[in-house]
């Protein structure tokens, strides 16, 4: 019998409308009991005084790079980074090599995750075979093997006919199509947000319209089909307006926002003097869009947060800005970046913060966890809202170091991560 008693913590569980000083008892991988005071002589006791005890954080958008790009990240290093960032589960995108467009690859990823035995890993299958955008992948087979959604992430589903059929076909399984919304002919060769900063730097811009055109199309197709579309890493004011309208009309349209799109401006490209660690897709936006995104998180238009953790090797990021790959890592900075910004600086209630990282993603993809209701999986994130630290990429568990947050002093860091009632990570004491 495995018994873990978390005492004196501030337990925040939006699913139970709970934000109170409580003890939590975990028995054999499930939440057994929550009460003001629990005594259990056989349990291992964790003192959580001064700490927030929350249902495990879930990141619905990561790239684990295995199979195929193990020099950037592996499933094992990716989940090590996840638990060190306070995440108990991650959903990994299919743009590996080979692409996760078959049950065999889905099963391979699940097997690697089981071997690592840290965070739970839920694979996301490809919409189209080989991400080619031409024919549907065997979605049903992948769902049977454990896939929780489909996406051609990294690229949009450009072909509107294919998107329509995907939104119809996935209704058989009740899973959403996650779309990376970008009209490629408008994005052209852009490497950063199109605007005054890009113009000054002489870098080709990606207009906000490239994202908005595709979001608008997806909303139209969601209405046509009644299917579920989830907009990945939404980043522009216009895209948020489309999602807001879609929700008001009762369509099944959801979206996620990343920490970097909330915390950083396109100006960071100039301030860092062309550091490719500020290059990602969608790009860091201008103030107008960042303000709109922040408002959308605070008013609930944004359903959940997600990192779009995209590891790249240092050699790749040492290239010229135009040539370096898009993407930044995010698992090990997401919690402090968003806590510091949303809760401390913008007054987001702690309950909403936990909902954005746990309750909402669990519901979105119908995953276990997302609550500490007795009987649910004993996945727990414990963090210290007062802890301050400087982001030091040298200490990352991820194989890659491509973060735009290096050197930033942030408040609100994870302390312990529990998956299935087992402590899989805890912060070293200094």
């Amino acid at each position: 019998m495995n018994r873990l008693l978390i005492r004196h913590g501030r337990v925040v569980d939006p699913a139970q409308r709970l934000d109170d000083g409580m003890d939590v008892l975990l028995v054999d991988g499930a939440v057994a009991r929550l009460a003001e005071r629990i005594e259990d002589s056989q349990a291992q006791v964790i003192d959580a005084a001064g700490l927030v005890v929350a249902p495990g954080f879930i990141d619905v958008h990561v790239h684990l790079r295995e199979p195929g790009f193990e020099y950037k990240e592996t499933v094992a290093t990716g989940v090590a980074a996840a638990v060190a960032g306070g995440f108990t589960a991650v959903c990994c995108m299919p743009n590996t090599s080979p692409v996760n467009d078959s049950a065999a690859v889905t099963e391979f990823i699940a097997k690697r995750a089981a071997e690592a035995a840290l965070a739970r890993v839920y694979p996301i299958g490809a919409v189209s075979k080989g991400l080619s955008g031409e024919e549907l992948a065997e979605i049903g087979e992948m769902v049977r093997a454990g896939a929780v959604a489909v996406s051609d992430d990294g690229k949009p589903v450009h072909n509107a006919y294919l998107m329509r059929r995907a939104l119809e076909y996935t209704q058989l399984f009740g899973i959403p199509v996650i779309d990376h919304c970008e009209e490629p002919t408008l994005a052209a060769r852009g490497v950063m947000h199109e605007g005054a900063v890009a113009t000054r730097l002489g870098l080709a811009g990606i207009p906000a319209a490239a994202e908005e055109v595709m979001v608008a199309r997806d909303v139209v197709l969601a209405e046509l089909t009644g299917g579920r579309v989830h907009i990945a890493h939404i980043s522009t004011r216009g895209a948020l307006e489309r999602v807001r309208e879609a929700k008001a009309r009762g369509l099944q349209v959801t979206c996620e926002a990343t920490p970097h799109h909330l915390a950083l401006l396109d100006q960071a490209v100039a301030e860092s003097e062309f550091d490719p660690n500020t290059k990602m897709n969608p790009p860091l936006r201008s103030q107008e869009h960042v303000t709109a995104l922040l408002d959308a998180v605070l008013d609930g238009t944004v359903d959940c947060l997600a990192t779009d953790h995209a590891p790249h090797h240092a050699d790749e990021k040492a290239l010229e800005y135009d040539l370096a790959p898009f993407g930044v890592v995010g698992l090990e900075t997401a919690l402090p970046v968003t806590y510091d910004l949303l809760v401390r600086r913008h007054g987001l209630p702690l309950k909403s913060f936990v909902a954005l990282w746990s309750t909402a993603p669990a519901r979105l993809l119908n995953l276990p966890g997302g609550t500490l209701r007795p009987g649910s999986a004993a996945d727990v994130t414990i963090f210290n809202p007062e802890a301050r630290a400087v982001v030091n990429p040298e200490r990352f568990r991820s194989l890659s170091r491509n973060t735009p947050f290096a050197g930033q002093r942030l408040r609100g860091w994870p302390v312990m991560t529990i998956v299935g009632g087992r402590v899989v990570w805890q912060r070293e004491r200094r």
Partner: protein
Amino acid sequence: MSGERVTRLRGKDLLGIDPLSPGEIQLILDTAVEMREIAQRPIKKVPALRGKTVVNLFMEASTRTRFSFEMAEKRLSADSLSFAAASSSVSKGETLLDTALNLEAMQPDFLVIRHPHAGAPHRLAKVLRSSVINAGDGAHEHPTQALLDALTIRLRRGGLAGQVVAIVGDLQHSRVVRSNVLLLSRMGAKVRVAGPPSLIPVGMAALGCEVYTRMEDAIAGADVVMMLRIQLERQGRMNFPTVREYYDFFALTPERLKLARKDCLVMHPGPMNRGVEIDSRVADGPQSVILEQVTNGVAVRMAVLYLLAGGYGEPTAD
């Protein structure tokens, strides 16, 4: 320009006009005026940079700028070597960082770099001890071009403040226009830009200029008209229809030049597409100072090298 007289450059590098103060720009131009005199002498060489090594790394085709730098280096007695790579080092499997570190290992004092990608000199400058001079990076900056343009205007007009300068052409892909707008507006000139609306980047005005779409409106009453090369190699066929139609709307012809001030200067950074953005009658006409720009280019580059080497005062004293 208020404030005390600047006698040295603050940074070790010249990466663009953007980081320069008006005082620093003034200093470079003043020094360039002195450097111009060296070219008038029978022996066109001073020992100012004797024992210094310059590497000219040109990763994009250039004749004029490279020769101009080499000429400047020789006139200052620096030892220099140039190499041209048809494309970025990445095609050889070497990263920009590797290239930089290999160069650094040879301990040059200066690295003059021309690169097809914006920001490449900035990345190098961060890791190198030697002084990096940006000789043009993508569509970002071309600071020595803007400095030589400013010197040309100043020598002809006695100053930059109050001059109305119209810059016409492909604004989207031009590093020359960016550096020029930054420099001229910073020095008190009034800058107007014009080009096909499909080649005007978003937020152009924020650089410090008025943006026009009709060329005639931009050049009306101007003291200087600067034509930009239409960079056919940098774009597909969707940004404007044809060279023929471009000429109709955006070429500097004798008729259009009449809209400007009578003694308006005609400038072009080269290489010119005769009969595309500029009519030969104008390029070779009495108002053209295009070859003076080339002459001044050597003087400006001498000034930049000299100042970055730590020089101040009389460059010709030994």
